[in-house]
């Protein structure tokens, strides 16, 4: 915009430069807002127990200490360590993500390339599952999981996350496959490939970006999920990491630096994914908004 509106006279150019200053000022102010909690999280987690005091909560730590992380991870002095629940989350999120990807890919393939009468309506009906408040399925869900012996178990959590992940994974893969030209499939059919042959030899080899987007999406949302974790695991030994963190922060006897260290531990896996695969993370986010 500055390039277009700069005639020869000096005054407009000066005005334009001031507008740049304003732009950067606003952007920096917002950056400070977004980074403020990160600052607090980091400085508090690295303070030693002697140094933790609410009246100096915004001061930098005088030295780096890992005591808080040790307490949050291993427990001790009334704190239940998060190591166990961290592993629970890992054991839940990996199979759930893998299965979600496979199901979503197949569904997307069918709903984009093998449409049948009513398939659009079916897709919309599946999609609705992504928006429901899970409160409206919780009680039957618990009963059915009890009935099939999966209540309060990691496989139960995996099942739940896979099933309620079907809408979004199907959506992302369907939109991804819709961009693949039908001629490719036609060529495959002429070569005698059937439903699975086309999937295996034409679709799968070019699906990698779709898989990355869906895997990141599912990993992040399952890792961060709280309600199912809370309801489906009444056993403290089995709870995922978000539930453990909530318990840690809900306890009045837990020092708040330990809570902060715990929060950082919970945030770490998804933050790393965001830092290294941010592009795909964003694509998943935007895909989640349908046509956005």
């Amino acid at each position, binding site marked *: 915009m*500055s390039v277009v509106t700069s005639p020869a006279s000096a005054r407009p150019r000066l005005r334009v430069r001031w507008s740049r200053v304003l*732009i950067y000022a606003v*952007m920096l102010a917002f950056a400070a*807002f*977004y980074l403020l*909690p990160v600052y*607090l999280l980091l400085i*508090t987690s690295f303070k030693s127990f002697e140094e933790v005091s609410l*009246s100096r*909560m915004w001061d930098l730590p005088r030295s780096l200490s890992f005591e808080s992380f040790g307490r949050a991870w291993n427990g001790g002095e009334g704190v239940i360590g998060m190591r166990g629940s961290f592993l629970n989350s890992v054991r839940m999120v990996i199979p759930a993500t893998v299965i979600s990807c496979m*199901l979503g890919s197949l*569904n997307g393939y*069918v*709903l984009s390339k*093998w449409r*049948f009468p009513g398939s659009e*309506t*079916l*897709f919309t*009906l*599946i*999609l*609705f*599952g992504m*928006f*429901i*408040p*899970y*409160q*409206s*399925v*919780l*009680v*039957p*869900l618990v009963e059915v999981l009890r009935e099939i012996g999966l209540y309060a178990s990691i496989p139960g959590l995996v099942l739940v996350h896979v099933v309620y992940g*079907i809408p979004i994974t199907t959506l992302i893969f369907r939109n991804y496959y819709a961009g693949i030209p039908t001629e490719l499939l036609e060529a495959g059919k002429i070569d005698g490939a059937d*439903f*699975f042959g086309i999937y295996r030899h034409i679709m799968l080899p070019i699906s990698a970006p779709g898989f990355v987007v869906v895997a990141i999406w599912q990993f992040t949302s399952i890792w961060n999920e*709280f*309600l199912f974790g809370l*309801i489906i695991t009444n056993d403290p030994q089995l709870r995922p990491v978000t539930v453990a963190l*909530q318990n840690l*922060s*809900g306890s009045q006897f837990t020092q708040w630096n330990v*809570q*902060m260290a715990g*929060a950082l531990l*919970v*945030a770490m896996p*998804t*933050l790393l994914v*965001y830092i290294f695969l941010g592009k795909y*993370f*964003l694509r998943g*986010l935007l895909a*989640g*908004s*349908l*046509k*956005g």
Partner: protein
Amino acid sequence: MQQAKPQAIGARTARRARWLNRDRIAALLMIAPSVIAVAIFVYGFIGWTAFISLTNWEGLRANLTFVGLENYATIFNTGRFQTNIRNLVVFTTLFLAICLVIGLLLAVLVDSRIRAESLFRSIYIFPMALSFIVTGVVWQWIFAPGNWPNDPTGINLLFKQMGLDFLQGAWTTDTSVVPGWRPEGLKTRIGIPMAMIPVIIAAVWQMSGFVMAMYLAGLRGIPDEIKEAARVDGASEWQVFRRVTLPLLQPVTLSAVIVLGHISLKIFDLIVTMTGGAPGNNTEVPGLYMYEITFKANKFSEGAAVAIVMLVVVAALVIPYLNYNRRTEVEQ
């Protein structure tokens, strides 16, 4: 394509029939598990919950005596649920409005050929990668007021250190409702529960970057020629934005409202962690209320009624949108 091929019709239909049989069946078989799972876990369970909401199930043993809409009457008549609804309306309205404004503002700024664009973008979006629980834990400490003004903690302390004492407040412990009208027949006061403000700020912190990303994608999708044409016609930058860019961003706004709206109407995790619904029930929302009365008080039928009310509200927002999406896709 079809008329152009003078093939033997019989051979073609025969081949077509065979194709239908094998591959189409394979396709249906592959999608069947997902369809069945969604049919049971989404629609079946919703139906089940709807049924529970019409019965009289209180206590751990299921009692499925049919009582009609009694539970709905009960919840809508309790002050606590009315307060929940008020809180949800306040939360959703402010959260949506602020996110849209900040999101659009940041998108326009990021899009104005600035330096370190990707760094700014990353900083604005990263909270989306975090759990609401993490967000809640951190902001809970930021908005813990302490014994202000003399012995403040959190944001109040920061304000004191910056010489901005007048900005100090009770935040999550504020019990006031502004303006706090009490209409005849209502069991709650109408207004903004001030304790909700910190929760809204935390939610905006988490989601506004996402709105920015959506608007940014929208802005980048607008061809420069259109704006250029308006400029040639003598439109100022503001007019170009107001008359060309904004109208073209309307679909993005719609998507953002749907996505943020359904998240906001279901909000649970953030409030559990940040306030637990306190002070009083000033930050409690239906998602939390349903959890409390179902799993702590064992009032299963009333909990189911709350859940169905939540579902109806979300559906009222989402179904028109899904329908609209489906129709435009079929047209394409």
